[in-house]
């Protein structure tokens, strides 16, 4: 089982989320407790302050368990150093993707400063994952528009549209070949419909682990446990948890 949406602790940022501090060993213990074999790990500090240091810290966190975790970096796309930092994330830090959080980081997905960044990610064979489900800067079809500008780049809706944009997220995923969807905080009835109607192999699952005020990430464990109550088929579950994320990560995880 692959968890496609997790976070490191917020080591430096004071956020509205309580946030426990934990190390990689504790995080892998959480993964074991939830039956998660591997996880995509995103920055937490970097969502609020996307610095090179934040990327260094995610890379160091993941490096302790390279067979269990892959790291995605983050940048503020308007910074003049953004393209170089994305190049460093892939070539220097061994990252596999880029995470953007447009409403926290304060930019529109239609801004052209994203284009050279996306070209670097696509050139490195990486993945772009964006927060979605929240107007005004993170609606699924805004992200789909970016995906259409970069058809070689796999783009993942990080939250499957959440509560109020999930139908839009599903429609965007159906009509955009290089757009994928991660069910993460999406309500169960929406998850069931998404899995029934999305193209095969385009739906993953994420817990958003890392934001808890306990290192054991109890809410994330509960989210995994909840899947059995969604009313999905074993084949849909296997595709979401294993086949689709594994195919998208294309051999980066054993």
């Amino acid at each position, binding site marked *: 089982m692959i968890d496609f949406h997790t976070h490191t602790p917020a080591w430096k940022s004071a956020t509205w989320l309580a946030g426990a501090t934990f190390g990689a060993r504790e995080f892998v213990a959480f993964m074991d407790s939830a039956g998660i074999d591997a996880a995509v790990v995103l920055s937490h500090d970097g969502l609020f302050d996307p610095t090179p240091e934040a990327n260094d810290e995610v890379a160091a966190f993941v490096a302790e368990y390279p067979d269990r975790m892959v790291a995605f970096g983050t940048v503020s796309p308007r910074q003049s150093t953004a393209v170089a930092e994305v190049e460093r994330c892939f070539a220097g830090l061994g990252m596999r993707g880029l995470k953007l959080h447009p409403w926290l980081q304060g930019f529109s997905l239609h801004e052209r400063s994203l284009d050279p960044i996306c070209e670097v990610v696509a050139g490195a064979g990486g993945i772009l994952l964006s927060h979605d*489900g929240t107007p005004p800067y993170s609606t699924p079809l805004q992200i789909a528009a970016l995906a259409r500008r970069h058809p070689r780049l796999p783009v993942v809706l990080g939250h499957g549209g959440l509560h109020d944009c999930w139908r839009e997220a599903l429609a965007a995923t159906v009509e955009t070949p290089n757009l994928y969807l991660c069910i993460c*905080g999406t*309500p169960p009835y929406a998850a069931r419909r998404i899995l029934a109607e999305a193209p095969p192999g385009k739906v993953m699952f994420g817990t958003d682990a890392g934001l808890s005020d306990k290192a054991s990430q109890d809410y994330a464990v*509960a989210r995994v446990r909840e899947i059995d*109550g*969604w009313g999905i088929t074993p084949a849909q579950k296997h595709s979401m948890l294993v086949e689709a994320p594994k195919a998208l990560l294309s051999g980066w995880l054993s």
Partner: protein
Amino acid sequence: MIIDAHVRLGQGREVTLVADQLLATMDELGIDKALVAPDERCTAYDNQEGNAAVCQAALASGGRLLAYAVANPWRGRRAVEELARARDAGAVALAVDPVLQGFDVLDGLLDPLLAYAGEQDWFVYIRTGTPPTALPLPVATLARRYPELRFFMGKSGATDFWIDAAPALRHAPNLWADTAYAPWDTVLSEFARDPEIGTRRCAFSTDAPYTVPRAELARVLEWSTISAEQRADVLSGSVVRLLGPHAPSTWS
């Protein structure tokens, strides 16, 4: 005592829940009582059909279910007449959904319905979330205009407007929080530890049939940073306070 403060009965766009199915799930999970609201279509359009259905379900439940009334506020005077019909059939609270019913909580359309709720001493469920017309803080401002009424903030702004839920609750002391969808370790704990809010203004709901009710209940039962007394508040005390004089003696 475990009371589910909000469930929708009927046929939604992606979901279905009938009374027998709800009662069986309640039996399985140990949920004693529930408040039931009409489905999406009947909330938006055919209010009379929806109110009749949930009031009938409540009547047939042997005291386990109580009914919310709905009326689209665009119907004006006829909306109030529909609420009166629902009251006569046994409804004990008002449920509104700004998204399904197409209004802004601050546009004034709701005023006649709130006046009626005040006359009946009903509490008012308002479904909140990400849409600009259904955000927690405007709901708090509305609640402050009606200090004599008790408001229940359905979904507590799930998900990204969870950040506004606690400020809304602080702003309006007559506003209650909903546990549905909210993790205890990132959202609910803030309500519990803030003396201005507390578990006495936090009510458990499953929001069935959109959720996995077992998971919704488990989150409250496994909420480890609250006392037994506080958990009892969340599971039943808060909704009993919301119901006020309409809480049957068997619900306490």
